[in-house]
């Protein structure tokens, strides 16, 4: 009879401290800027101070004469390199040719115009000041609605209407539903431009070996493999002569899910000079020239019955694209459309997107990428409808939720929600908040003339992006798992963490599956010469897809391990557990290390079995995953100043199976604080002439620890059937859930004044003006 050996301990599901952290918090991690090479040059970029201008000439003589300057390149030198790629294909999309250095015109403040190469970075920076660019400024437009107006300056002269694309999606009898609706509510809702502000700015080192004709690019990137394919194309070199390494990446939030001019530019310089070259983005450059997020103006209409059941949703979405398409720029608002109905049963939807060029840096994916905007919209609209119908915001949500027995659920926007039980996190959050008591307290507070608000959001999102047909660059992920001759385990994954902690979660899974120690697993990523092709880390996909690829590779590996085990034990009935292969008859066993040694020494091989212990898997997910949750925020407003106090913040997230509660909590905390940034403080402001007014941290307010509330957290677990790990994803969840909960709370606080909606960020002054009787 077969004996089953039950595992003594499993790591999955436990609060394991992150193995990444010691190197991060002791300053011993290797970022791009830590890379030093003999004879390395340094590059510094001359950028446009104008939002729109013709370039009449560039005088580089003084810079070239500065001792230590090696070269200056301008648009003319690199006109055949590139263009900076746009990975999106929408019908009729207008794609401006995006040169890596401006040619005869500049289109936004921060547009790269020339590059100085020098012996050190200080000389390079000094030389930038010696370059004189003869700009002839022209009219600019920085606001997407103004750009659509008759007679607005054309961002790209060939397209005077400033429209890059129109996109339409519709389901059901929209006009009929709205014509027959018992109630219709409408609202204009904006989601302002945000600046990603990863702690580590971007940076690139390029190193060319002329003998081998081989280029290596080190870049702070979320997508090293895609970068390799795209940059090889930009430079016109064979893909297999380019190696891309993304070393430690200090935060990305989507802004490093991109290929920028600088990667190709440094490659060009390394090839041209034959020397390695480094460029590190300054904070000011980061704010001006790295993509921004959001940038929506949304016009919503919701049709409903008097009992609160939503019957139709209409959205006109004006997307501020900026001046060019970066990798995914035009795709981001289409994600908003997919997410439009939120967690609600309404299938009658119509969406129209207008993608608008402005003289600003491009927008692109930023934590949540399209889903926060959509969630903000629907969660605001549901509250507006509840106010119109004098219903409690909880009641109206419960009335419209898709029920737990309706999954898989086909939405009106073409998605198939995998699994869900939307009342579960909401009920948990309401209990944690003591909702009824809070409402009673609010009644008293109002009677006393105080402005106390209770706001909630019940959000959903699209994670584990995604099935390849739905993703611009392929949505699968890869893993190779190797047992080394000594028995330690090496995982090569195609994902590229930037702080999410997958070295830890993947180690937990691999250690459990192979019965080895947590520390015996090394997870490698981010080097195209080490790791088989992969896609990268974004869209809350890494564990759900990359983790699954690893899990499946391990299953295959276990079969091989057992074959070697059976051979060593001279048995045909073995099982594998806790790192040992055991003969089910004799009870004799061999360790993984013994098996690995035998597999590599290969004195003898099992029938039809090759030496070594390695397996690979490329996993194509059958669907996205759809996590959800409920956030409740209690606010109180200082009547005299308009300042908002977050009295309580409750976040209940359901991200499927939780592999490491500590990491989930970290993602939720960080996500909430980032959402608070949008709700209360952050705004990338361009003035009418296209100057960025929030170009440094003295003016662009990201929340600091002292501005962050205590967050009361809980998780519910509704597994997904989409992958064998049953995980959904949590990297973006809390950011998505946060901003509508905060705004709903503040609007609730001010509702006695007749306030129905406020646009973010909710600055104290904006609230004060509302209190003065004006409208913000």
């Amino acid at each position, binding site marked *: 009879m077969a004996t089953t050996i039950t595992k003594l301990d499993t790591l999955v599901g436990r609060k394991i401290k992150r193995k990444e952290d010691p190197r991060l918090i002791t300053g011993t991690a290797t970022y791009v800027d830590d890379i030093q090479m003999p004879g390395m040059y340094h590059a510094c970029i001359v950028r446009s101070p104008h939002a729109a201008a013709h370039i009449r000439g560039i005088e580089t003589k003084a810079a070239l004469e500065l001792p230590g300057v090696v070269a200056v390149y301008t648009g003319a030198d690199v006109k055949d390199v590139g263009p900076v790629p746009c990975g999106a294909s929408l019908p009729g999309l207008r794609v401006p040719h995006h040169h890596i250095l401006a040619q005869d015109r500049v289109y936004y403040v921060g547009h790269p115009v020339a590059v100085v190469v020098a012996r050190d970075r200080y000389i390079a920076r000094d030389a930038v000041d010696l370059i004189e660019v003869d700009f002839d400024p022209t009219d600019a437009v920085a606001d997407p609605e103004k750009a659509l107006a008759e007679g607005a300056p054309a961002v790209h002269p060939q397209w005077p209407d400033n429209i890059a694309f129109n996109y339409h999606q519709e389901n059901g009898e929209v006009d009929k539903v709205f014509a027959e609706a018992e109630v219709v509510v409408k609202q204009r809702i904006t989601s302002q431009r945000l600046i990603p502000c990863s702690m580590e700015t971007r940076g690139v080192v390029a190193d060319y070996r002329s003998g081998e004709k081989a280029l290596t690019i080190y870049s702070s990137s979320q997508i090293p493999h895609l970068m390799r394919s795209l940059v090889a194309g930009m430079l016109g070199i064979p893909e297999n002569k380019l190696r891309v390494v993304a070393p430690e990446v200090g935060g990305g939030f989507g802004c490093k899910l991109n290929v920028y001019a600088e990667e190709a530019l440094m490659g060009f310089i390394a090839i041209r000079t034959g020397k390695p070259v480094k460029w590190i983005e300054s904070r000011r450059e980061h704010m001006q020239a790295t993509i921004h997020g959001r940038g929506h103006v949304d016009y919503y209409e919701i049709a409903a019955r008097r009992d609160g059941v939503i019957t139709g949703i209409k959205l006109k979405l004006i997307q501020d694209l900026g001046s060019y398409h970066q990798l995914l720029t035009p795709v981001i608002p289409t994600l908003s459309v997919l997410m439009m109905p939120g967690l609600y049963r309404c299938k009658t939807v119509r969406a129209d997107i207008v993608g608008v060029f402005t003289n600003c840096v491009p927008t692109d994916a930023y934590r949540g990428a399209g889903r926060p905007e959509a969630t903000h919209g629907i969660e605001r609209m549901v509250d507006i409808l509840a106010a119109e119908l004098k219903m409690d915001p909880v009641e109206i949500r419960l009335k419209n939720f898709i029920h737990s027995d309706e999954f898989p659920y086909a939405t009106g926007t073409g998605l198939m929600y995998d699994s869900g039980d939307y009342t579960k996190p909401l009920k948990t959050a309401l209990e944690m908040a003591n909702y009824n008591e809070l409402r009673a307290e609010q009644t008293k507070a109002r009677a006393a003339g105080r402005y106390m608000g209770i706001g909630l959001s019940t959000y959903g999102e699209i994670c584990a992006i995604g099935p390849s047909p739905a993703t611009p660059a392929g949505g699968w992920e890869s893993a190779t798992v190797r047992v080394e001759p000594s028995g330690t385990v090496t995982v090569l994954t195609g994902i590229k963490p930037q702080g999410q902690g997958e070295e830890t979660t993947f180690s937990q899974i691999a250690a459990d599956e192979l019965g080895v120690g947590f520390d015996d697993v090394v997870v490698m990523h981010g080097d195209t010469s080490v790791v088989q092709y992969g896609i990268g880390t974004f869209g809350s996909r890494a564990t759900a897809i990359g983790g699954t690829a690893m899990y499946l590779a391990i299953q295959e590996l276990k079969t091989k391990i057992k074959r070697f085990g059976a051979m060593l034990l001279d048995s045909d009935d073995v099982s594998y557990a806790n790192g040992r292969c055991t003969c089910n008859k004799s009870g004799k066993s061999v360790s993984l290390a013994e098996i690995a040694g035998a597999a590599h020494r290969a004195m003898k091989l099992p029938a039809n079995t090759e030496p070594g212990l390695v397996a690979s898997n490329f996993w194509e997910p059958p669907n996205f995953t759809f996590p959800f949750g409920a956030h409740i925020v209690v606010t109180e407003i200082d009547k005299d*100043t308009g*300042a908002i106090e977050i009295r309580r913040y409750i976040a209940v997230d359901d991200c499927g199976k939780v592999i490491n509660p500590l990491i989930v909590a970290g993602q939720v905390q960080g996500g909430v604080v980032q959402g608070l940034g949008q709700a209360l*403080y952050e705004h990338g402001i361009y003035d009418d002439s296209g100057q960025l007014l929030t170009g440094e*941290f003295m003016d*662009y307010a*990201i929340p*600091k620890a002292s501005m962050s509330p205590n967050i009361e957290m809980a998780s519910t677990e509704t597994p997904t059937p989409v992958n064998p790990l049953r995980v959904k994803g949590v990297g973006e969840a809390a950011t998505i859930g946060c901003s509508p909960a905060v705004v709903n709370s503040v609007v609730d606080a001010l509702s006695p004044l007749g306030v129905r909606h406020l646009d973010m960020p909710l600055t104290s002054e904006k609230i*004060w003006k509302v209190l003065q009787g004006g409208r913000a």
Partner: protein
Amino acid sequence: MIAQNFDYLTPVSLAEAFDLLNDPGAKVMAGGMSLIPMMKLRLAAPERVVDLRHVPGLNKIQQDGAMLRIGAMTTHHELESTPLVRAACPLLAQAAAAIGDVQVRNVGTIGGSIAHADPSADYPAALQALEAEIRIAHRGGERTVLAKDFFQDTFTTALEPNELIVEISVPLEAKCTGASYQKMLQPASGFAIVGIAARVSMDGGKVSMVRVGVTGLGGSSYRAANVEALLVGSEGSAADIGKAAAVVAEGIDANSDIHASAEYRAHLARVYTARALSAAIARAEAQ
């Protein structure tokens, strides 16, 4: 963000410092918390940076009769945490504690802050309310300037080229005096959108002395003598405070920027003046 090339010099006496500063390209540095960001943004490009940190005697805090004498190189952290300052001049300790973040307070100095004269800096309000004396040295002599004359305009003070602030003197707080510094933070920088420093003495149920210093509202910090005149002699009731606070922004050309409009700043000045006065009166009465 990289500054232009400069020489870095560390004199060990005031005399040496004056020698090194006798050069149009030279700039003195205290904590560097304002100077270095300006150099990185290339808004300042000194050829010589003369760091005062090795000049002895510039960071002493000592009681001298009815005055507290504070060396120019005393850090914000030292001012917020030194028991003598907290007891004898709580207003200054409160203003110091309200500055930026821990890292900035550990390095930035009072001398550097007031020399820089950022219109939103915190100390100037307190120093106006304290009628501080600022001792300024030059090669071969020194002079003393009152706070009200020292702060002249945005980033502009009474300092002449080649003069150094060496000491700031403030009165030891008398019995029955309460003080409070209240500010609204600019969320990005932490500076004051407006900051109000109030000192009030109570005598027999009446306000016998009141001083109000304002920062952030206009181009320069100032003492709100009109507020003081309305409050002194009153009982310091909420109504008295309200009436007095209402005039704090009168005649001031309020700043306006992306963080706050002039109208909102003026409103905040009134609110925070009332708050600082109430807190100061409550403290005075508690003594």
